[in-house]
């Protein structure tokens, strides 16, 4: 569903304008409240998600060139800090960490104690794109919406402060509008910002989405946003919706994928897919994990650690001496059918938010939107032949 905005988007709190040089005050307000700020920063040739000591670590003036199988940093002609997309990491690195200890136990006591070592910080996530806001909502459903809530995720999610940043510059592989979750932020945030860099200066139109957000915002020097500025921001976001690099059909994906289980197309994908699992690592909603039991040298102390896993791993489906899904065909089919199809059966929504990361970070440039399009044409052709 496409957001229909032919009028100015209504803010969920009174909108204010914060100049870019006032971002340090935002950091102070957050750190003063005990948050560890996590946000984008340039590292190792990419824009990654990391703990930020100060606003200066934001990637001012850095953008990206992205396409299927391609990601390069580029210097922008302006100083925008959030003019980039499809980085190799997502906020699941913070909320659903790659490694977490589930319990530790000693033979002497015969009991296991839950939890992770050490104090856990409360995180303020700065720069969450609307697609990623939806992704967090999806992880909320998967990890806390069932019969049992995951304590590792819950522990990080409950205290988290989310600062969404709307998109005005979609990447070449973005398709959030197709998935109904961008480029504007509707809900799920404490603060939402829209970055403007032009003759009017480098500034952010900011609105609060929660009382906690309003509380933080009150400590950041700002001025009231005039109608023209609000409209300017709104228009920039609306126009971004029209410039998405890719698109995905809005309806019928679960049925399409269920009907395509025996499609000849999987052979075609398998000839290109390395089953490297990059897509699952960068995807903001891929949540699969496995566990490792470890002991000390005496064998008297044991711990269970939970680590990220991928359905592309050969032993992911290991059962009785062998894996169920050994072929590349079956593993790619599993990933895409789950993400776009059976996720609905299991969790009540799509698993895809249209962030485009999987397209960018696939070494062979496999494009999920293209694969869906091909599957749909093949199915149409088959059904025409069968006279259906």
């Amino acid at each position: 569903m496409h957001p229909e905005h032919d009028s100015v988007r209504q803010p969920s709190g009174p909108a204010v304008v914060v100049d870019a040089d006032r971002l340090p005050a935002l950091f102070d307000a957050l750190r003063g409240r005990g948050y560890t700020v996590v946000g984008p920063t340039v590292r190792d040739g990419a824009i990654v998600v990391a703990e930020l000591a100060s606003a200066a670590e934001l990637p001012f003036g850095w953008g990206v060139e992205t396409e299927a199988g391609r990601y390069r940093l580029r210097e922008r002609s302006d100083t925008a800090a959030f003019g980039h997309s499809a980085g190799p990491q997502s906020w699941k690195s913070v909320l659903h960490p790659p490694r977490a200890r589930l319990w530790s136990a000693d033979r002497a006591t015969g009991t296991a104690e839950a939890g992770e070592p050490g104090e856990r910080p409360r995180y303020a996530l700065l720069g969450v794109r609307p697609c990623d806001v939806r992704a967090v909502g999806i992880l909320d459903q998967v990890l806390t919406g069932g019969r049992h809530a995951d304590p590792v995720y819950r522990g990080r999610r409950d205290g988290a402060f989310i600062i969404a940043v709307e998109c005005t510059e979609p990447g070449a592989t973005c398709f959030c509008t197709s998935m109904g979750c961008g480029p504007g932020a509707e809900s799920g945030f404490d603060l939402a910002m829209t970055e403007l860099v032009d003759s009017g200066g480098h500034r952010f139109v900011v609105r609060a989405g929660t009382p906690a957000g309003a509380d933080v915002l009150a400590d950041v020097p700002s001025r009231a946003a005039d109608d023209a500025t609000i409209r300017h921001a709104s228009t920039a976001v609306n126009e971004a919706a029209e410039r998405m690099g890719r698109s995905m059909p809005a309806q019928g994906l679960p049925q399409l994928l269920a009907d395509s289980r025996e499609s000849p197309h999987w052979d075609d994908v398998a000839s290109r897919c390395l089953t490297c699992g990059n897509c699952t690592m960068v995807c903001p909603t891929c949540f699969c994990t496995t566990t490792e039991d470890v002991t000390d040298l005496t064998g008297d102390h044991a711990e269970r650690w939970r680590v990220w896993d991928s359905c592309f791993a050969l032993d992911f489906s290991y059962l009785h001496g062998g894996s169920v899904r050994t072929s590349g065909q079956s593993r790619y089919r599993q990933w895409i059918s789950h993400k776009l199809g059976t996720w609905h059966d299991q969790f009540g929504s799509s698993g895809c938010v249209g962030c485009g990361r999987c397209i960018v970070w696939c070494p062979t440039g496999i494009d999920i939107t293209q694969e869906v399009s091909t599957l749909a044409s093949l199915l149409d052709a088959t059904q025409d032949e069968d006279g259906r």
Partner: protein
Amino acid sequence: MMDAVAARISAHPFFAALTDTQRAALAEDGTTATFTAGERLFGEGGIADRFWLIEDGSIALDMRVPGRGDQIVETLGPGTVLGWSWLHPPYRWHFGAVARLATTAIAFDAASVRRRCDADPAFGYAALRLFTSVITERLQATRLRLLDLYAAPSQVRQAETQPADA
């Protein structure tokens, strides 16, 4: 005795696909047969001049394997058909058969049935259809047993090594 056999053939679901006339013809070649527990019906290599519809009891198909003795391949119970080596030359049994329990059956004269098939192609086709369904079902079951599905993974030869962490 003929009438009794005819009645049992008519009642038995195995022959349901035949016409009344075909069933009556078959009944002419059928006689009652009984076996005591342990009695051998035929040995491997013997002349396949009969086939049986088992009505009650149990028959074991076996083969003498050097070093292993008589190895039982399968047992056949009520409602199953025993013997199809009579269908094709050299009309010799490939396996042996011995009664496990006291068994009653209808025995059919194979040579006579073959002559009927030759003389009446419609009868022949119907009879063959009956038997091929038995053979395919038996073959399918045998193939499934060959897969050794109940075996533990270590007992099954794998094409490639797999990670074993369960």
